[in-house]
């Protein structure tokens, strides 16, 4: 049906371009640049610029038609782009209260508080100098990178089993990629903070579907997702996307940047510090077998490090919806300066929560199908399609209980502050997230659980 060449990306391994030492290789070998090892690692900007400039062939895949939807694919896809967009654009209209009403109470966005003011008269209420108001809110909100469904992209093959049985060809992620999109939003907005970028362009390049070398595209994510039993086209859970992001970052190292997922709502300080200072965490073990050990915590703080880290915490806050006692916790997390949002959602659809107002989340919604960008120029022209200036809200009580919290810790100072805030917010957090100094034995790779059988079908824990 389709020429196999069509599916072959120019580069199969994204890690070549970020490899430490900066050996940036590309398809055109003659133009390969080799950096000596002593030179500093390339910044993201340098890396992405190099993707375009050193190659005579355009790295973008340009031969996909505008709407790549042959009839046979439409039949095999369980829904078409048209119906997807109708469905997803409609659901905003039918929801009762969707846009942010700024007149009554302060809104919290990515850890910052914005105070209300009466817009008509432009008179601030309770607003002193240096405080953020409505204008700043809209400005900062539209600077958050917004990633949506795209259509017409380089085909992804949905293959199953060891024989690679061909199930489907996907050219859009409409209907299945929303958790991936929410994850991309979290990753990109974290990197934006990490690199202190004003202009999002080079970050957006890293997720371009038709850019073969883009390290964080849907294509690269679904390729890795297979490791977590997710085929392209499968729905991801908030924890799967976090693990995929962790793997993506370890495959495509970014200078001074780490990503780590902590399961079971516990942050182990030894694992965190070991990722930051690049020492195996077993080195931090002490004689005391306790998980809490203040001496060791002090020891950790004696280390110095330059790296920043993205911490991702998949949590479940109720059976279907969030239990009332955890409302204050999620609100507290979103008000911490280290927050990079939450990959969450409402039943069946993922959203990216970036803040809250009173009892509602403020979110960015990936459920809009847009056309893929096919070249550097087309991305420049359509850069606005990656930002959203109309904040929408969702009552916390209607949100899905599975979600992944994201925190970005810039440096040691920031880590100390993070620890203080987690301690100070104990009452709000309500035991949802805890920090422990040592990883218990049973959470370690080589742990052998002793067989304990009682005879009466009981297992003694």
């Amino acid at each position: 049906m389709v020429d196999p060449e069509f599916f072959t990306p120019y580069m199969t391994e994204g890690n070549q371009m970020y490899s430490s030492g900066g050996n940036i290789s590309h398809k055109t070998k003659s133009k390969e640049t080799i950096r000596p090892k002593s030179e500093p690692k390339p910044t993201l900007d340098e890396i992405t610029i190099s993707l375009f400039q050193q190659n005579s062939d355009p790295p973008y895949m340009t031969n996909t038609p505008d709407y790549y939807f042959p009839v046979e694919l439409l039949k095999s896809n369980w829904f078409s782009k048209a119906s997807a967009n109708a469905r997803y654009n409609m659901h905003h209209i039918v929801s009762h209260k969707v846009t942010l009403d700024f007149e009554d109470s302060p809104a919290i966005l990515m850890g910052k508080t914005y105070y209300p003011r009466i817009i008509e008269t432009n008179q601030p209420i309770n607003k002193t100098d240096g405080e953020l108001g409505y204008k700043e809110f809209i400005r900062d909100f539209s600077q958050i990178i917004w990633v949506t469904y795209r259509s017409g992209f380089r085909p992804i093959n949905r293959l199953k089993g060891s024989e690679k049985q061909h199930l489907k060809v996907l050219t859009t992620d409409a209907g299945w990629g929303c958790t991936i999109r929410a994850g991309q939003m979290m990753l990109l907005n974290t990197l934006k903070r990490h690199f202190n970028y004003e202009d999002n362009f080079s970050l957006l390049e890293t997720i371009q579907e038709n850019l073969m070398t883009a390290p964080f595209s849907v294509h690269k994510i679904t390729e890795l997702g297979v490791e977590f039993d997710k085929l392209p086209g499968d729905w991801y859970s908030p924890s799967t996307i976090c693990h995929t992001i962790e793997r993506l970052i370890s495959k495509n190292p970014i200078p001074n940047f780490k990503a780590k997922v902590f399961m079971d709502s516990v942050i182990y300080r030894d694992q965190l510090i070991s990722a930051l200072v690049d020492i195996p965490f077993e080195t931090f073990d002490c004689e005391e077998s306790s998980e809490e050990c203040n001496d060791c915590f002090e020891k950790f703080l004696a280390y110095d490090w330059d790296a920043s880290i993205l911490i991702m915490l998949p949590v479940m806050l109720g059976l279907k919806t969030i239990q009332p006692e955890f409302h204050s916790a999620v609100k507290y997390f979103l008000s911490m300066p280290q927050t990079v949002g939450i990959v969450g959602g409402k039943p069946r659809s993922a959203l990216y929560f970036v803040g809250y107002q009173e009892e509602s989340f403020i979110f960015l919604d990936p459920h809009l199908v847009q056309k893929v960008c096919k070249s550097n120029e087309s991305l420049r022209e359509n850069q606005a399609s990656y930002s959203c200036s109309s904040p929408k809200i969702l009552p916390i009580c209607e949100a899905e209980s599975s979600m992944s919290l994201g925190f970005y810790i810039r440096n040691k100072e920031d880590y100390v502050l993070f620890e203080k805030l987690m301690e100070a917010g104990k009452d709000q957090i309500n035991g949802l997230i805890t920090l422990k100094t040592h990883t218990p034995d049973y959470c370690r790779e080589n742990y052998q659980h002793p067989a304990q059988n009682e005879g009466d079908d009981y297992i003694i824990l």
Partner: protein
Amino acid sequence: MDSKLDSINLQQRKIECQKIMQSHPNQIPIILENDKEINDSKTMENRFLVPKRFKFQEFIFNLRKNMNLPKTSALFISIGGHLPALDKTMISIYDEFKNPDGFLYVRYSSESALG
């Protein structure tokens, strides 16, 4: 409720519970029920004895290692339709949620996938 237990009436369950609690005075008898989506009952026993002093978090960790769950899989346990706070002790959860037969029924549920 667990299918194995449906066939046994309340009185029998009570007797069984008392027996096991007498022989293990510092433990709580727990019965684990699967949620619809996860089904690996063949790989795990569903009756546990958990020390009273355990925190809920400790219980989850111990369960995880018992189930041989991959490190990347999420494991969420609910009791009586509710997710207890992680730092609650098992005895306080038991007092609040125990079944009339004396067992504590807990349920493990999978994380929701979103499209």
